[in-house]
């Protein structure tokens, strides 16, 4: 498989993991009516969605040079995603769920670091 193909598969794998994290956040939002908690969940979700859009946009790039720039930028921003992993634990009260969400994000970070 060509290098770009392998990198694009990495992006898709990271998207899948981040979607799993999102799914848990959505489930949490359905189980609370606390406005303050929902504001925090909304903020965390928005950040992950924004990152997913960035990954999908990179995956859609076909020009080699532009793709290389996009993946380099993503690899650099993986550290910010890692910070998100910590923030989730402060926002989500349920320890087990917070660990699952952080786990998905952490796996995505590991994959993106290989770009």
């Amino acid at each position, binding site marked *: 498989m060509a290098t770009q193909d392998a990198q694009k598969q990495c992006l898709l794998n990271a998207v899948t993991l981040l979607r799993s994290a999102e799914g*848990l956040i*959505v489930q949490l939002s359905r189980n609370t009516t606390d406005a303050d908690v929902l*504001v925090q969940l909304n903020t965390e979700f*928005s950040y992950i*969605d924004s990152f997913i859009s960035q990954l999908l946009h990179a995956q859609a790039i076909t020009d080699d040079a532009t793709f290389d720039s996009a993946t380099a930028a993503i690899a650099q921003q993986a550290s910010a995603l890692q910070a998100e992993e910590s923030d989730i634990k402060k926002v989500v009260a349920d320890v087990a769920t917070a660990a699952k969400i952080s786990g998905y994000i952490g796996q995505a970070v590991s994959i993106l670091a290989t770009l």
Partner: protein
Amino acid sequence: MQPTKLTAICGALLLVEGCAGLSQLQSSMSKFDQGAHQVATSEAAFYANVRTADCTYQNYESIIDSVKQKAPVNLGTSACKPTILTDDEIATRQLLMDAITLYADKIQALATDDSNKSLSDDSQKLAKDLNSEIKGSGVATEVETAVVAISEMALDQRRFKDIKDASSSMEPTLEVVVGALKAENTSFIAGLSSKTDGTEIALRTILADEAKHHTLTSSDVIAAQQVISAMRALGYVPSTPSANDESTTGKPRSAGTGAQRGATIDPAAKLNEALDSLVAANKAIATVGTGGIEASVNDLVARAEAAQAFQAALTK
């Protein structure tokens, strides 16, 4: 005399059977062309839906931000900034779909009885334009090479005389173009679904805030439900099943509609099935007899029609 008459009768029967076979083949190539065009149309509609969902989410996010920040709500027509597919990227993908339909048009032309197997003037112009526009469009090198090869095949007058030879020679080329489209269809659905889930959380936030201030009404809840239903209808694949498992949270499922978690609506899967059947039909043209080609092309048309009907239902 008897053997000569018998021979003549047998010859006539063979001729009739041969003509019937040729007509069936031409009918199959017509269906092949029809299926290819339907797949291309469905693909274009899917991209339009991706854009709609992206912009819809942005719109609700901006409204929600205004309400949360107690700032004036923007009722103007703000320009959407696409986050998944830009206009240029959609235009590039249109070139790939033009390549697919041109290819099918040429195959159909090769199957005719005419000595002149050229495409129409409009199709020839499309092929020439495609040849120049794909260069420098930013597509991957192998995709550009494949599209150029298809445009040259569409304009060719000498090399391809036989549909089996043409479809066999062009099989790898067609697979490159189809493969590029298929990979993205799956990823775009993930983006759509993320926008929809995000809107759901944002709306829940608003409703909770209204409830906190004792201003929540049933109309607000109904309106929010309608927004989510409309967005999911564009295409929605929930995240992994474990994410929606109540055992994950240990808490009872919250009150809400039965459709709370959202059924899977996956136009990408239908499109990819149709694209796969296009490749399979081309392979059949290259390798098997008339009967096998007919079966394969019928499958293409069925899947292309299913994909087209699916998109039409989503955009209602």
